[in-house]
Structures are given as C-alpha cells and as structure tokens.
C-alpha cells in the first residue's frame, strides 16, 4: 500500500467508522431495541454512523495534515 505516513495515521481514524456497518454490529443494532427517540433503532443507529464517519474523517484529515502537511496541489 503506497499510503503516506499521514494517511497511515488517518486510517486509524477511519477504520472505527467502518465498524458501525459490520454484520455483528448491525446484528446487535437490529436486535437491541425496536425504537429510540420515537424512531426505529436502526435508523437512529445509521444516523449515528453518518455523524461518526464525518467526525472521524475530520480527525483523519487533521492527523494527515499534521504529519504530511496540507494537500496544496
């Protein structure tokens, strides 16, 4: 893999975001409880996944910039 050192660090932030959608986690989420805040739990869980991915990507971007310098091309 030809990742830069900054990207390799960024990967550490991105992997946990992917965990939201893995079968065992989904299996748990599907059976956890039917609803939360009035909406189906799986919909709520997906919303959490979307927010978590965005936050993780921002942290990954920051980590990448700190190590490699900002992409300026």
């Amino acid at each position: 893999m030809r990742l830069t050192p900054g990207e390799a660090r960024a990967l550490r932030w991105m992997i946990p975001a992917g965990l939201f959608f893995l079968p065992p986690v989904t299996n748990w989420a599907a059976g956890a409880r039917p609803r939360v805040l009035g909406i189906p739990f799986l919909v709520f869980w997906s919303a959490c996944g979307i927010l978590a991915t965005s936050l993780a990507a921002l942290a990954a971007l920051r980590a990448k910039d700190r190590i490699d310098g900002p992409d300026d091309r």
Partner: protein
Amino acid sequence: VSLPLAIILGWLLLTTAVGVLAGLNRRFGLEEYFVGERSLGTVLFYTLAAAEIYSAFAFLGLAGWAYAKGVSVVYALAYMPLAYAFYFFLGPRINRLGRRAGYVTQSDFLEDRYGSRTLGVGVAIVGVVFILPYLQLQLLGTGIITQIASGGALGRDAAIVLSTLSLVVFVSFSGLRGIGWTNLMQAVIMLLGMTAVGILVPRHLFGGIEPAMDVLQRLRPDHLRLPDSGGLGVTWYASTVLLSAIGAWMWPHVFATTYGAASERVVRRNAAILPLYQLAAIPVTLVGLACAAKAALDPEFAALVRHPDHAMLIALVTSCGPWVAGIIGAGGVAAAISTASALMLTAANLCARNVVQKGLLPQLPDRRTAWLARTLVIPVALVATVLALRAPDMLVNLLLVGYSGIAQLAPAIVLGMFSRVPSRAGIAAGLAAGIGFAVVAQLAGWRLPGAVHPGLAGLVLNVACVLAVSRFTRPPEPERLDRFGRLLAG
C-alpha cells in the same frame, strides 16, 4: 396551470437559464467541457457531488422501499459514509492523476495504467451500457414526480420531454461547469424538499413520527426489524452496504467529477463533510415507514398507492397544500435532473473521447472531440428518452445489475493505484468474470448463502481472477509502471 406545476416548471426554467449562463463566454476545449478546467472549489464540488449522488431514488425509491419492505432500507443510509471513507484515500489520487496526466475520463486512466487501448474502449462501452438505464430511470423519475406532485396537471410523458429538453440545452452548452452551477441550486432545493417532506407528511398523517411508528409497530412489526417484511437480513444488509460503498466511486460520472476538483485538498475535505448530506435521507426514510403505517391503517390510502415508489408523493399531495407540493415536487425533479445531467455528459464524453478519438479516429484534435461530445449529448438524450417513453421496463434488468456491474471496476482502479501486480490480461479476465457472474446471478435470481449480494460475490471472483491470471501473464512494462508511480507520488 396548477400552482405546483407552475413551481416545478419555473424551477426547470431557472435551472436551464443558470446552466446556460454558466457557459457563456467560455472557450470550450476538452478540459473546460469535460472537467470544468479542474477548477471546482469546496462548495461547488460539495453540491455537485451531493446532487449527483442523490438521484430520483431519494424521492421515489427510498420511501418506496421503506413502504414496501421496511427498515432494511437503511442500507441506503449506511453505504455512503463508508464510501466516503474509501474516497478519503482514493479521491485525492484520482484528482492528482487527472491533473498530472491530463485524464478527462475514467477510461483514460485505465488505458494509460495498463497500456491497453482496447481495455480503455471496452470499459468506456461498458460504462455507457450501465449509464443508459440509470439515465432512463432519472428521466422516468422526473415524469412520475411532476405528474403526481402537480395532481395530474401535466402528464408523465410531457414532463419527461420537457426535462430532457432542459438537460440537452444546458449540458451541451456548458458541460461540467453548467452542471456544477445548476447542482448548487438543486442541492439546496433537494435538501429543503427532503426535510419538509419528513416533517410535514407524518404530521399530516398521524400528528408526528412517534404515533406513526406506534401504529407500525402494532400493525406491521416486521417493518421495524431485520429480516424485515422483504425477508432481507443482516448478511444481505452488510454485503449490500459493502458492495454499494465500493461501487459508489466507480461510476464514470463520479470519477470525472473528481477530476474537476480544484485541488486534492478540496477532494479530501469533501470526503469529510459529504457524509453529512446523507442525513437528509433520514426524513424520507421515516416518511416511507409512516406511509406503510397509514396503508396498514387505512385501506383507502393503500388502494391509492399503486406502486410503492409513489407512496410518499401520494401522501404529500393528499395531505399538503399546493405550495408545499410544488416545492417538494421541484426538489424531486431537481434530484433526478442533477444526476441525469452528469450521466448524460459522461455518456457523451466516453463515446467522444474513448470510443471515437482514441478508438476510431486517433487523429481527431481535442477541440473537435469536445465539440463532438457536445453534439453527442443529443443522441444520448434521444435514446434514453425513447426508452423512457416507449419501453420503461425494458432496461430494468440492466438497471438491477448496474451497481453490481460498475463495482467490478474497483480491482482495476484500486489495485492499479496501490499495486504493481495486476497485468492487463488479469484485469480483463477479472472484469469478464466479475461482471459475468454478477449479471447472471442477479438476472437468474440465484440466492447465495446468507443472501450475500451477488455483486459482492462477483467482486471476490474478480479479485481472485486478477491475482491468478496476473501471476502467469506479462505485467505492463516497468517504464510505464515507473512513470505511473512518479505521477502518483505525493
């Protein structure tokens, strides 16, 4: 002319005007027309990508799936964030290669990386074959949304023709830049429409989301669990999320958009903020579920919904005022048109650049190729429109396998960037095996163990073929790989 129809047609007219204005006083060479002179900043790239990704499915299919099958529809919420995580690493490389090597289409990249013009032309043709049904579906979407939201004031076929005319005018006039500016508007009205529908429809039907979900839990509890009413379980969900996340950035039109970004920083920043747009799909999903609750409670409403995809719009026109129906209808038309414009442009560009300029007429200058692409928008639009009007179901099977098929490009692209191993014969064998398996398995209705998505199984077969065949065949010349490595170097 009814008020909702006036709003939708006014929006269509405004879209056309903005699209044409974006291209005024521009000298259209290859880079300007195909990739907007690689000048898209963060905001324009954000709205362009978001509006391209949200198609008519956001207003028809998403709620329709939730209405018919239930909560397994959340796969559509889940796969994009995962796709953006891949894109964080892939996107800047696509942009860098485009800038340094002058690529303007996805096939340019594959042809150069593997040193095979035949592969470039073949992938371009495959791309157009998968784009056409997707484009046809968007045009059908504009027709259905306009017809229902306007209360039948304009027929489906007339709406399709009007939308196509608008698209042909601004796409052929302004290319990617025109699509960028129109999608800026489309992204805003789509967001407005999706949010409004999520708040207003459940409130009109049940007084809010919570009572709607209470009814659903009581009358159709299978709609709230996996496996749901469609029998779709966790393995299906996870494999579909993974396949769709991999396939999302393999569509030729999305690839070309990445070439258009002004810098790698724009691409990477967008990979971080684009997932947030996905939150807009949540209200639509909930409306689909609320409509299912309404149908379970009220047989008259159920009888009105002749196709699950129409459920949300029927609930909208029966419960909201004409202003709201018009604005949400315009949002739906915007979702379809913003995707259709990019598909139309890309199909014409692939034909002009990779089939004609690189395949049939290698002496054709770039400037003439750009003009050819502008002209080819018309036949592409014509074919898609005729199919939408005369044979709306003919390509439905091809559409079903579209995502599975296009995801098979992933090994060629990803391994092409991160590894020296694949040979051109390996890539060709992998593509043939992966596409062949996915198409046959899906069209024949094979049920794989655990209901794993056939496209994902095809992808595994594809990678295995690439690695196996590459082991015994000649790799691309070392000079080519070294040059490619230098292009990719940060």
